[in-house]
């Protein structure tokens, strides 16, 4: 190796209460290289990032920057040493302008006052370096998530970091936005920055990274050159076992579903400015996929049919009985449950234990007068933890301490515990690893086999095609079609999603 690593970690160990989060992990970051960190949820990727950036102080191990041993006591110290991070949850200030979000804390001054003209100019320059042209004085909240992501990167890049860590930057981006982000990553790479790229999309790993490090259960599995490792091999290393390749995952054979009774029916259901009126039938025992780009109205449609949001027009019936607008409790009583897209804000209550989180909906349904006994609660929670394979399997653990995939499982357990007839899952697989994804997909199929109706929203067409009987396609807040999934191809659905959204791409 002719080039020396800019940052080298050896034997990093981080202990959390009751858990060894990172166990003697090594990592080498070379200048001008994109390095992917790969592992399932809970493998220790986030902890490793935190240890590199001073957000967590490792219990053992050494960090070398340019060969000299360093230790960072705070994120500020790491930033000063040239290690910049862009976190998965965008840590920006939507109430301030684009320019301020880039420059805050480093604004140029003139006569003791912030020089706003130069601040804006420097922000424009920072954005232009990434080939982004937006009004620096516009409030950040006016821009879509993808632009905000690039603003966050512009902020990080402006400090001219030696190491730039991107924690799941693509999880909320669509394909063209990902392409744009990769262009930016390549620009930075050519400038000699060492980039750490974390993602769950293996295709993206192969597209953009040069080297990768695989973690599993807090331990180092190995470091590989991307071009020298096959995808199947990589998945095997991530999961620590040889799973059948995802392509072999049995395609769901759709049966003629007119035989199954209709469970939920929407006629002309809609809400002004949210979702255009649509007709939709969900039958017992089917998996109905909902496809569409971000912001196409998938979530909004799901919230209307689950009674979470009030509908403005049309009729919603469950087994022939009409649900009044906004009758969410009535909907739950009839077995229609909606599991929210955003785990943090619409689902998991981080400060409650796993057990409390699982039993929340069940307890709400029983009413507060009929509290389940502690032993019964524990038994129930334990059975769900085992059934869904939630790790760590400790019902008393704070739910906030779990990884994303496991939080999703807890959420799923909460709703499954009330024995729903129709389960609406909004992006349950977003931001979770392949192993957990496959498990969730299996679970959906087996639930449907038992007669439950499932509505499954996902941004990934492959998995929709894999598990759905029918796929509803959303475009610009309109349900543009419901396709029977027999011999449906990726391109068929994509064509419907993308048909006219190309011409007018302003929000």
């Amino acid at each position, binding site marked *: 190796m002719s080039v020396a690593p800019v940052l080298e970690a050896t034997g990093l160990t981080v202990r959390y209460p009751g858990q060894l989060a990172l166990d003697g992990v090594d990592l080498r970051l070379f200048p001008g290289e994109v390095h992917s960190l790969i592992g399932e949820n809970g493998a220790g990727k986030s902890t490793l990032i935190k240890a590199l950036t001073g957000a967590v102080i490792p219990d053992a191990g050494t960090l070398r920057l340019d060969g000299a041993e360093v230790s960072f006591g705070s*994120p*500020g110290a790491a*930033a000063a040493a040239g290690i910049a991070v862009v*976190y998965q949850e*965008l*840590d*920006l*200030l*939507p*109430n*301030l302008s684009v320019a*301020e979000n880039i420059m*805050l*804390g480093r*604004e140029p001054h003139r006569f*003791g*006052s*912030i020089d*706003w003209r130069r601040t804006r100019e420097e922000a424009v320059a920072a954005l232009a370096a990434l*080939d*982004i*042209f*937006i*009004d620096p*004085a*516009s*409030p950040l*909240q*006016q*821009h*879509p998530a*993808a*632009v905000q992501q*690039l603003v966050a990167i512009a*902020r990080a890049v402006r400090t001219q970091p030696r190491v730039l860590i991107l924690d799941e930057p693509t999880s909320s981006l669509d394909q*063209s*936005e990902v*392409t*744009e982000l*990769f*262009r930016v990553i*390549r620009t930075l790479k050519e400038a000699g920055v060492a980039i750490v790229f974390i993602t769950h999309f293996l295709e993206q790993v192969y597209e953009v990274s040069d080297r990768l490090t695989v973690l599993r259960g807090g331990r180092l599995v190995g470091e590989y050159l991307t071009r020298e490792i096959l995808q199947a091999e990589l998945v095997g290393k991530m999961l620590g076992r040889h799973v059948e390749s995802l392509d072999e995952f049995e395609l769901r054979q759709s049966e003629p579903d007119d035989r199954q009774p209709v469970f939920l029916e929407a006629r002309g259901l809609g809400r002004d*400015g949210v979702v255009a009126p649509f007709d939709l039938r969900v039958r017992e025992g089917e998996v109905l996929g909902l496809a569409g780009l971000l912001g196409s109205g998938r979530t909004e449609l799901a919230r209307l049919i689950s009674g979470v949001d009030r509908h403005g027009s049309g009729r919603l019936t469950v087994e022939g009985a009409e649900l009044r607008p906004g009758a969410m409790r009535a909907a739950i009583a009839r077995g229609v449950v909606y599991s929210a897209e955003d785990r943090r804000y619409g689902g998991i209550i981080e400060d409650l234990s796993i057990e409390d989180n699982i039993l929340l909906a069940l307890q709400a349904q029983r009413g507060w007068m009929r509290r389940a006994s502690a032993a019964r609660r524990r038994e129930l929670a334990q059975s769900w933890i085992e059934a869904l394979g939630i790790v760590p399997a400790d019902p008393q653990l704070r739910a906030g301490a779990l990884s994303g995939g496991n939080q999703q499982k807890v959420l799923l357990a909460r709703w499954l515990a009330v024995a729903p007839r129709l389960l609406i899952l909004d992006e349950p697989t977003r931001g979770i690893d392949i192993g957990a994804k496959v498990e969730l997909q299996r679970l959906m199929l087996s639930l449907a086999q038992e007669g439950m109706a499932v509505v499954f929203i996902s941004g990934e067409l492959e998995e929709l095609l894999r598990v759905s009987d029918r796929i509803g396609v959303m475009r610009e807040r309109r349900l543009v079609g419901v396709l029977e999934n027999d011999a449906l191809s990726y391109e068929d659905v994509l064509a419907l999603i993308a048909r006219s959204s190309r011409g007018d*791409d*302003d*929000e």
Partner: protein
Amino acid sequence: MSAESPVQSAGFRGIQTGPVLRRVNAWLPVIATVAILLLMLLAGQLYFGDFVTPRLVSSLFDNNPYLIVLAVGMTFVILTGGIDLSVGSVIAFSGLLGAQLFAAGLPAVVVLPLMVLSGTLIGAVIGIMVAVFDIQPFIASLAGMFLARGLAYVTSLKSLPIKNDGLNWLLGTSWGGGQWYTTPGVVLALLLVALAFWVLHYTRFGRTVYAIGGNEQSARLMGLPVGRTKFLIYVISGTGAGIAGVLFASYTQSGNPLAGLGMELQAIAAVVIGGTILSGGSGYVLGSLAGVLVYGLIQIAITYMSVDSWWTYIVIGVLLLVFVVFQRALSARRRG
């Protein structure tokens, strides 16, 4: 891949609002407040005839300089998403402290700074509770409110008159000719508004105040001094309350353990009417000034109509409701 294709980047040009429109959007709540102020003046003129006079405009400022100062400090606090309930009680404590010190024969140059400092100190206590011990601002400042009110009673159980030329000068001196007049106290209050505007918009500290109100966690991760800033805004608010105490003592020529009762809520009302959002991150100190003027104008109009003074509260209550709904609608539209 043809990643460099210009068509791809075109999507990232984002929304191009004109600079004028954009500014107007952010200032809309303040503009609405000023519009209401002007509408009220117009209505008064039409209803009473000879209503809008130089005298009225002058007294609009002259009636409430202490409330202006309180609203300035409160704006800092509310912009971070906090609240300071102690400022009304600080006025009582600061006033009585001054009365006792003047009675002991100390000169104004010593007493006035000590009166201001008493507010700074109580603000610092609240600031430490909020910034270091991470106590809810509502509770921390509630404690500060009881503490200051209690200290006021410890200082004196009944009202004490103050006879001091230095203190009297602040609001007793009238500058200007004829109908147009102002006092040193009003000038001081307006200077503080200008200073606050500069601090909020042209210093890193001020932008950090907005950043904390936007998202405290993000501000921390951006490496901004969140704890220090939170501490300092309560010091600012407390100092403002101390200055307001001086002005109020000058206005009433006395110290009174019951002074400033409920005035913290008047200050909060003025800030909210002025367009600052209680959850923080958005608002302008000039809006707060307009809010105080609206408040003062309602008081004057009620006096003009010679109806009972509690109607002031009803009108303020209605206005607050209208403004909160208005802001809600505005932020909903912005997001949508």
